[in-house]
């Protein structure tokens, strides 16, 4: 169990995303937009290639929160802007998404966590943050 004090930097979580993950997520979430599995469609709308669902990336942030909180079901608030796409190459290596978290405040409402979610040197989510009931 992590200790939550304002200023605490939570252990960085690194996740790999592959095309196979996106196909599974499309099925599990019901979001079958072809920009998440077809290079042909993705490039036709001006994207560099197939991109991860924004909600997939936010789900990875939630996964990090579960790890820090010691299990699922502790998230009271979670949100972000979808600012930059996570481009996922068509190979077996995929791409790495890194989730960092810092405790901002601890109140009666819970533990406020400021997140930073990056792919390469780019922040892919805008102002991602959460409140944990721990």
């Amino acid at each position, binding site marked *: 169990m992590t200790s939550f004090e304002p200023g605490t930097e939570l252990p960085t979580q690194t996740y790999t995303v592959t095309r196979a993950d996106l196909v599974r997520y499309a099925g599990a*979430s*019901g979001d079958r937009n072809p920009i998440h599995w077809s290079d042909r469609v993705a490039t036709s709308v001006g994207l560099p290639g197939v991109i991860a669902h924004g909600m997939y990336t936010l*789900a990875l942030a939630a996964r990090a929160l*579960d790890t820090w909180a010691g*299990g*699922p079901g502790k998230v009271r608030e*979670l949100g972000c*802007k979808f600012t930059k796409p996570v481009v996922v190459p068509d190979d077996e290596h995929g791409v790495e998404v890194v989730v960092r978290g810092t405790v901002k405040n601890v109140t009666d409402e819970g533990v406020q966590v400021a997140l930073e979610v990056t792919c390469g040197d780019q922040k892919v989510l805008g102002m991602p943050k959460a409140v944990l009931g721990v």
Partner: protein
Amino acid sequence: MTVEASLAGRTFPPTEPYVVTRERLVEFAHATGSTYDGGAAPATFPIVVAFGAMTALMEDPSVGISLHRVVHAEQRFTYTRPVVAGDELTATLTVDTLRQISGADIIGTRSEIVDADGRPVCTAFATLMHRGEDA
């Protein structure tokens, strides 16, 4: 084409009840590299139910949205309790705000997700950006 101006403040009918099964939760957790331990659903799972409400909004011919012009710009959840297997969830979507910024419609939606007894589970706030013809 822009979105119908009277859209702001409009509430859409509730979605059909979504029965949360253990299998669905296992599948969702695995898709994001997690494991499902039999208890609380992954935090972003309610998007599955909210997505149904958003799809109904986007496909409603009276609204004037072209699906291929929509970008999911922002998402936020507040939770009353975690989703668990056995829940029967419905989402009721309200368009809270509608703004035009440089040729795009910015649609602020709120989906109230409740259980079979009508008790609140989660609220999903989604901002959708609908690009105009020239944007």
